């Protein structure tokens, strides 16, 4: 079996496939902190899988991000070029909250007394200006031991260009202690010393915690007769190699959401769709990730703890835009006197008012119930009864404050939630220079199908896909993730004098290095390379990433690609300006072991279509057909309609039509020409 386990905040989800028969299994259990491996074993038992039969266990984990946010990492030291140990604390000096007189950043992970300097210096071309004084190293080791250091980060100026000194120090330290050692060039070959230093420090900070977690998981599984391989989901959207997992644990920072995106890519590719927005909505947040040309968009800089106050990570991380709008988001009146939905959430406990677990604040789920979009008797397959009267009371109280009837208040809550969620899609499309009409939405998560079409309509998208098992999709998607290695190199050279054969040579090196890393995993198939160049008009700071076609490329072509990409993204291009080539990026990926089996069908149900009154923005409350996904033959269905299944409900508003494709996906399209 190939098994995927997604350990979330509340639930642990499992999806498994037998690669020979294509048989699929799912299970769900409670997450069991701090020993989350127990929840994983529970899921394996529930799905009636013998651990000995598991060939590969795929896993998305939040252990790294949690260690960082809770500041529960190792006792870490930093070693820098002489004169620059304060770079980590100086940062960039910006104040994103520009009217906040009490602004501050999160404190550095390494205090000043644990930051050590070594005499050495490279210049910006990588020439040695001052040789490394190796005689200082024994003394340094003594100091580190004296301070009981567990983990060491090394970042020297211009190591992105020439890492020789970093290598020498890392080798020495690895040979003289049982500590975790991380050097900046092993993580990033890009300039900007603050960002690279922080990246290295965070990697060192979580290194011991990540490896002890992996050992624990491994031990627990092996104790239960598991003899397969564990693969972790990397933040870049692919599976990580074993080497990455142990030496670069920071690459696990956004491991959690990767499964859903991988699944969306697979869904799209089976349908011949390469341009997608993966939209995931759960209880507290909604997330969007763009997929272009079949590849998840990654951003070169990620912020742990948020842009406003957090830590930058200079690594390829899925470009996820997340907002605080989910099923549990609470509607309230804020201090301005304005109505507001989220980011405060009732979560699972006390939960929406209708859960009858003590929550009395009106939530998005309450609005859905009141407007007929959820069925109080058929929530989670009827396993949980919802109390409509409690929703009515909660929303009614808000209505009294606003001087409005209950129904328009419920409708307003949904409209505001839609607007907030649409902002995630707007950011990954319009703000990144894409036209949302060119993209199809793949919607999942427990609440995704309820709101997907509303969000698509708000942003101007015309096609929405609801995959099978949308509530289990994060685990399910992992079954289809590929191996992926993202490598970069800053060159920062003018295009007019840049030797293009030199570029080809460097790309060649990156490709070889990527393949070597993949081969370390084991036999891989269908190795693919995608080349990107980050370029800019001279004088600009921001670069634009453009994808380069395979094969040789000449200067004029490269120039054209940049101008065209720039015009598409920003609306204008400056033909007369000179261009710099700043960074080369290479994505190397390979097919993972997977089943060719078609997607799971919904368990067939005999339930017949029913009718109930449902509220839609265009029509108000109207009688509406309700079909069960499993009992629906897949023939064309015109909105208004609802399609219910065990853990989710798809809302089909008037003006939209749905059908089921051969893979079991619900395909929803706007009526009229597309």
């Amino acid at each position, binding site marked *: 079996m190939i098994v995927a386990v997604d350990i979330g905040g509340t639930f642990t989800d499992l999806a498994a496939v037998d690669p020979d028969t294509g048989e699929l299994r799912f299970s769900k259990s409670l997450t069991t902190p701090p020993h989350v491996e127990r929840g994983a074993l529970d899921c394996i038992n529930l799905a009636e899988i013998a651990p000995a039969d598991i060939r590969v266990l795929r896993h998305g984990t939040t252990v790294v991000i949690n260690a960082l946010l809770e500041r529960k990492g190792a006792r870490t030291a930093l070693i820098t070029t002489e*004169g*620059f*140990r*304060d*770079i980590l604390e*100086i*940062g*960039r*000096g*910006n*104040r*994103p*909250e*520009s*009217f906040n*007189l*009490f*602004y501050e950043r999160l404190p550095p992970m390494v*205090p*000043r*007394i644990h930051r050590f300097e070594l005499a050495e210096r490279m*210049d*910006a071309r990588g020439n040695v200006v001052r040789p490394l004084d190796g005689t200082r190293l024994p003394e340094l080791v003594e100091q580190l031991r004296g301070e009981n250091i567990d983990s060491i980060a090394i970042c020297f*100026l*211009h190591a992105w260009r020439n890492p020789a000194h970093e290598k020498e120090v890392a080798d020495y330290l690895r040979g003289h202690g049982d500590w975790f050692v991380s050097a900046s060039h092993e993580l990033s070959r890009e*300039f*900007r*010393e603050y960002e690279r230093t922080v990246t290295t420090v965070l990697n060192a900070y979580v290194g011991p915690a990540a490896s002890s977690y992996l050992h624990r998981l491994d031990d627990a599984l092996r104790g239960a007769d598991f003899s397969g391989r564990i693969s972790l989901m990397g933040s870049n959207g692919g599976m990580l190699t074993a080497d990455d997992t142990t030496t670069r644990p920071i690459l696990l920072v956004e491991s959690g959401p990767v499964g859903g995106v991988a699944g969306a890519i697979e869904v799209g590719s089976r349908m011949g769709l390469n341009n997608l927005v993966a939209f995931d909505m759960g209880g507290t947040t909604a997330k969007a990730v763009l997929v272009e040309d079949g590849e998840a968009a990654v951003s070169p800089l990620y912020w742990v703890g948020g842009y406003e106050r957090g830590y930058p990570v200079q690594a390829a991380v899925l470009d996820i835009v997340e907002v605080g709008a989910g099923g549990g988001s609470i509607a309230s*009146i804020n*201090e*301005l*006197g*304005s*109505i*507001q939905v989220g980011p405060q959430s009732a979560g699972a406990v006390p939960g929406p008012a209708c859960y009858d677990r003590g929550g009395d604040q009106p939530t998005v789920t309450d609005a859905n119930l009141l407007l007929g979009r959820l069925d109080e008797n058929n929530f989670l397959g009827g396993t949980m009864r919802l109390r409509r009267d409690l929703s009515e009371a909660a929303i009614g109280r808000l209505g009294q404050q*606003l*001087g*409005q009837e209950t129904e*328009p*208040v419920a409708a*307003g809550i949904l*409209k*505001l939630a839609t*607007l907030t969620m649409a*902002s995630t899609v*707007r950011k990954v499309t*319009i*703000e990144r220079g894409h036209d949302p009409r060119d993209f199809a939405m793949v919607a999942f998560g427990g609440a995704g199908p309820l709101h997907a079409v509303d969000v698509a309509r708000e942003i101007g998208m015309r096609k929405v896909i609801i995959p099978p098992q949308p509530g289990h999709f994060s685990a399910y998607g992992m079954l289809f993730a590929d191996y992926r290695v993202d490598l970069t190199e800053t060159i*920062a050279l003018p295009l007019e004098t840049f030797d293009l054969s030199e570029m080809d040579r460097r790309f060649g090196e990156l490709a070889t290095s990527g393949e070597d890393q993949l081969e370390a995993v084991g036999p891989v198939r269908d190795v693919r390379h995608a080349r990107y160049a980050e370029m800019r*008009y001279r*004088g*600009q*700071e*921001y670069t634009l990433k453009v994808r380069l076609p395979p094969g040789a490329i000449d200067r004029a072509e490269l120039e054209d690609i940049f101008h065209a990409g720039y015009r598409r*993204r*920003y*609306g*204008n291009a*400056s033909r007369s*300006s000179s261009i710099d080539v700043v960074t080369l990026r290479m994505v190397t990926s390979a097919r993972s072991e997977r089943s060719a089996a078609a997607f799971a069908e919904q368990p067939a149900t005999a339930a017949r279509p029913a009718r109930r009154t449902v509220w839609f923005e265009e029509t108000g409350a109207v009688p509406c057909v309700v079909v069960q996904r499993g009992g629906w033959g897949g023939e064309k269905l015109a909105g208004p309609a609802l399609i219910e299944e065990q853990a989710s409900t798809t809302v089909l508003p008037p003006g939209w039509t749905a059908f089921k494709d051969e893979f079991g996906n619900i395909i929803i399209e706007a009526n009229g020409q597309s």
Partner: protein
Amino acid sequence: MNATPAAATRTVDSFTFEIIRQLLIAALDDAEVNLARTAFSPFIYEVKDYCIGLLDARGRVIAQSQGSIPTFIADLDEPIRDGLEIWGEEGLEPGDVLLMNYAEVCGQHLNNMVVYAPIHWEGRLIGFAASRAHWTDVGGQVPGSVSTNTTDIFQEGLQLRSIKVHKRGRADEEILRILRHNTRFPDLTLGDMAAQIEAGEMVRSRWLAMIEKYGWETIDACVEMIWDQSESFVRDQIRALPDGEYFGDAFCDDDGITFDRTLPIKVRVEIAGDEMTIDFTGTCEQTAGPMNTGRSGGLSAAKVAFKSVITPRLPSNEGAFRALKVVLPEGTLISATNNAALSLWTVTMKTVIETVYLALSQAVPDRIPAAHHSAMGAYTFYGRDERNGSLFKTLDSVLGGWGARPNSDGFSPLKTVTHGDTRNVPIEIEETSYPLTVERYEWRPDTAGAGRFRGGLGLRKVYALPQSCHLMAAFDRSKCPPWGLFGGQPAKVGGVVVYPPDGGDPRSFQKVTGLLLERETRAEFLSAGGGGRGDPFERDPGRVLEDVRQGYVTFEGARRDYGVVIDEVSLTIDEEATARMRARPAQGAGAESAGAMSR
């Protein structure tokens, strides 16, 4: 807290209102992202020296972008009203784009160019999309148009007073020629203008799409509601403050021409019911050198101080400032007229804003930190790169300490109060792009103002020059150091120190333009710390020890400034000696620094 939802009495329901409010903010924020990404000048993408606004047909601010520097706060109204007077409603046609930096109205250095376009709907003027951004060069006596020693506006560059660069959708080639030949960097400048025009077009089309979808009546009603909501929220906040009159008093070093005459700034704040008055009467007269701002600078300083203390998170619009009255006589340092030099206006702004904080510290002590480094500390190296013969010009300003807060130490390092999301330039980028080498970048121990809570620390950054070049630097506040509050001590000040290659005596500067630096000169940029708060002898000795361990405070500093004696070998507090030290008054203590800054 109980701002009644205006919706209750209007025709627009609270949900539609909120949706429109959010769409407006999103439209401006999106346009802002676009401008920052398409601009060519680091002033725009790096310093964020710009703003974008949507205004109504009478020039009132409906919404403004939020991510740019604070000083451009709801101040696009005056330039547009001037344009309305010149052209009249009929004279402004669809597809027109106008340029405006006329100093008598705008009151800022001429680099700050307002680019605005009228918005028409169903044949009538309904508003304006406008942006203001710092153009790299608009002519004048030095590259970049900013220097420390101009004496009138004509030395600072080209003035344009609501000149149409696009007429009915078509670019005017004659105007473009004027622009192209009055700047040293035509590609950068025209590139930035194009970015501004595009950002304005984005605001215009999003606004029209909203009108299309929701109807003009609804949108129009919502705009009034947004203003009213902001106004009533602000008035509620002011009502909660103690009524009274509060005074602040500080000064800038000099005007860049006459170095022995300081520039006093006087502030009186009056809180009465739900209104606040900020009165600058008594502030010194306008100067010959370029430290002046026009009247709009004084108004903007008042608005920045007001907003950051009263409603830091409320988006800026017309309604947000209705409860603020500003008294500003004509002809002062911050209401200069008659073609005064304005080049360093933003240096002055910091101290003016902080002087308002100083006054407000008596009214709302919990909301005001002690003074921050405030020096600006902008510097530019320029010359010809000997490796490839091309001209180069760097741009950065120092990071320094911020003032102590009511219950914690000041944060450090950050840029100044008039900077927002503005970052420093990474060393690896400086060394890759320019013929410069950085030797050290580190904390300056003992530079924080001492106090029960200390300020943030200043920094030292040392450049070594592998070839000769020129330096422009603009520092201030060396004579009126960042003050402490409630018994806290002032911080150590900064400046630039130049070490000649021949080992001759180092020279210190605050403001300097066109200084030739020979090859192998070292230039050391020192930034100030932030002021302290409360009696330093009341600081927890354990915290002083920790500061010493980390190297933020020296052993000597601990003894001198905090009365804490620490054994240099065992790194422990000598309790007895500390008690003896603390029985004496702290050196320099006893002088309440707040309000005592006047000469």
